[in-house]
């Protein structure tokens, strides 16, 4: 697979892994949150309903008490007593000792005229005959009014009871302290922004809310015909978001409205939301980082194994090439060398005959001579190629001796001293002094080194440097020899083929193209590794690694 393919693979793995982990995570987070939110909403609503119910009971109880108190008053005392201003004042002040709910008390006859009145206002002369409440109480016996301004021009509410005595109808009327009533309704504060108040069927406020200016929209949903039990709605405006609970009183056609600040109530939910998203967000980051790391690891692993595979393949191909060439060489050598020997002898015979007087007289004598020379020269060349090829065919076991590689290098380079001097090349030595001796075949190593040095010299041509260095690699227990030239380097195409038999960059007749392939097979046989590193314009470096102890590599 190409590098491009690997990148593709990496992307696929990453996308798949992210998809399979992120989607469930997000779905899980969202589901948990929405379930929690709905459960929490339900709980808040049911709390509000319970609260409204309790509160309604309280208010109903209060109203019932007031009414029954007034009725007790009406029936416990005779009209005679109640008609007496003095008695009435006595009754009121007695009552006010324990509760100041009743502000005043008045007895009204069937004509709507105050018979007696006790209280802070001067209402003795007022006639109620045409008042709405008066008519109501005449019909219903008991009456609880809405809040109204009345004759005093001040909002208040009254309760009234009807009593029949001596064939006449009497009405006992009391004003209820609206402050006490208001505070009763508002009792039990509902958070920082909660509120509670009563409205009548027309939506008019009956008690003073904690925060004024109530918009009817808040409780509009509950108006209309009364219903039993509590209802909860949500109200949103630019200024606030509230839960609104509504419940109708039993004692009076009033709607108890309770507002609860949504933000305050839902605070834990918002905190949960923040926490959920923090956990999900953290999880997402964690997963992304993890996925990228894993993807990178997989791709790197894959890359490494592919590279190793490729290298292994290359080595296999290389060694099978060598083996094939070896067999071929062995077969061909005999078949080629014999004809070459015949050609050589025939040419030699021709040369012998050229010595004869009559041939010497021939005008083409020189030409014959040159032709024979050429034949002999090329037979020589062909013979050499075959002999080198036979290098593969030889199945000689390496002769192992203790070698000090630095010495082998010095001895080998000595063969090339003249050449190096002639070409004005500097041989730079960079030898490690603490090299272990190795067990290997000196002659074969020498052949390889000679090949590499020759190639380096040829690569440079004239004027340059060859750096020879040695070292020891602890980990693999191998001795390293590297030969570096600052010649022109090799392009990729050449690099790919340099170990191929008969591949040469030298001119025809100057190189057989066998040097490096022979070197390769020798180093291979000695259990070592040969490799190179080359860059066009920067020269080439060959590195040989040889094991300190010889392990024969069976093919």
């Amino acid at each position: 697979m190409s590098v491009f393919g690997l990148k593709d693979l990496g992307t696929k793995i990453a996308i798949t892994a992210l998809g399979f982990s992120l989607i469930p995570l997000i779905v899980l987070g969202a589901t948990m949150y929405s379930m929690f939110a709905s459960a929490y909403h339900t709980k808040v609503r049911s709390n509000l309903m319970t609260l409204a119910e309790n509160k309604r009971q309280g208010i109903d109880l209060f109203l019932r008490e007031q009414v029954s108190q007034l009725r007790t008053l009406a029936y416990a005392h005779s009209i005679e007593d109640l008609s007496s201003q003095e008695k009435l004042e006595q009754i009121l002040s007695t009552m006010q000792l324990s509760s100041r709910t009743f502000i005043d008390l008045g007895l009204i006859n069937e004509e709507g005229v105050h018979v007696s009145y006790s209280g802070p206002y001067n209402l003795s002369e007022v006639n109620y005959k045409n008042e709405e409440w008066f008519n109501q109480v005449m019909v219903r016996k008991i009456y609880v009014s809405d809040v109204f301004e009345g004759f005093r021009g001040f909002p208040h509410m009254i309760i009234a009871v009807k009593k029949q005595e001596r064939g006449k109808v009497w009405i006992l009327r009391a004003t209820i302290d609206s402050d006490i009533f208001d505070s009763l309704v508002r009792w039990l504060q509902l958070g920082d922004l909660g509120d509670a108040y009563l409205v009548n069927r027309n939506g008019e406020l009956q008690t003073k809310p904690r925060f004024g200016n109530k918009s009817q929209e808040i409780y509009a949903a509950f108006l209309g015909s009364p219903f039993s039990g509590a209802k909860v709605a949500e109200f949103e405006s630019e200024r606030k978001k509230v839960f609104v609970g509504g419940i109708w009183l039993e004692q009076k056609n009033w709607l108890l409205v309770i507002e609860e600040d949504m933000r305050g109530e839902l605070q834990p939910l918002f905190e949960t939301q923040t926490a959920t998203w923090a956990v999900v967000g953290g999880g997402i980051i964690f997963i992304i980082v993890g996925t990228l790391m894993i993807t990178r690891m997989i791709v790197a692993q894959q890359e490494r194994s592919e590279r190793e595979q490729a290298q292994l393949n290359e080595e296999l191909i290389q060694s099978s090439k060598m083996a094939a060439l070896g067999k071929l060489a062995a077969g061909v050598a005999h078949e080629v060398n014999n004809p070459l020997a015949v050609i050589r002898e025939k040419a030699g015979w021709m040369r012998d005959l050229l010595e004869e007087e009559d041939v010497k007289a021939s005008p083409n004598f020189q030409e014959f001579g040159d032709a024979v020379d050429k034949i002999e020269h090329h037979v020589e060349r062909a013979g050499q190629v075959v002999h080198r090829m036979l290098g593969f065919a030889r199945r000689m076991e390496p002769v192992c001796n203790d070698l000090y590689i630095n010495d082998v290098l010095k001895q080998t380079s000595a063969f090339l001293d003249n050449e190096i001097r002639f070409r004005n090349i500097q041989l730079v030595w960079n030898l490690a002094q603490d090299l272990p001796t190795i067990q290997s075949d000196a002659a074969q190593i020498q052949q390889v080194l000679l090949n590499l040095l020759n190639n380096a010299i040829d690569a440079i041509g004239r004027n340059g440097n060859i750096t020879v260095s040695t070292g020891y690699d602890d980990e693999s227990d191998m001795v390293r020899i590297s030969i570096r030239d600052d010649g022109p380097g090799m392009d990729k195409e050449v690099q790919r083929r340099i170990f191929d038999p008969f591949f040469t960059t030298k001119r025809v007749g100057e190189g057989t193209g066998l040097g490096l392939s022979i070197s390769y097979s020798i180093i291979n046989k000695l259990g070592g590794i040969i490799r190179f590193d080359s860059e066009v314009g920067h020269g080439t470096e060959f590195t040989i690694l040889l094991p300190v102890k010889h392990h024969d590599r069976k093919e």
Partner: protein
Amino acid sequence: MASVHAGPSVLVVDDEQDFVETLVKRMERRGFKVAGVGSGQEALLLLGKEHYDVVILDVMMPGIDGIETLREIKLAWPKIQVILLSGHGGEEMGLRGMAYGAYSYLLKPVALKTIVETTYTAFEEAGVR
């Protein structure tokens, strides 16, 4: 062609007819008494009839091969010097030949000069011994 047989007598054994023929002619020209045969059997037959100082023997031949012929020669006439000649290279073969008593081992295609020189030294050493 007039030639003087002053040097050692040589027998060339090779299944390559052209090679034997030409080598014989060229060596005769250089003053050797030379004969050529095409197989190991012929060589052994001829050696039974005539004496030769040096035998130039091809290793790869049909019938009995060079190494076998060498052993026969060395058994029957230990004094005859044998120079092995082969197109099929390899020190192994050479070493085996040397072990059986060959004087030298030459690889084809070889220069006549080398053959002549080797023949002389082989002959001289045989004399010394």
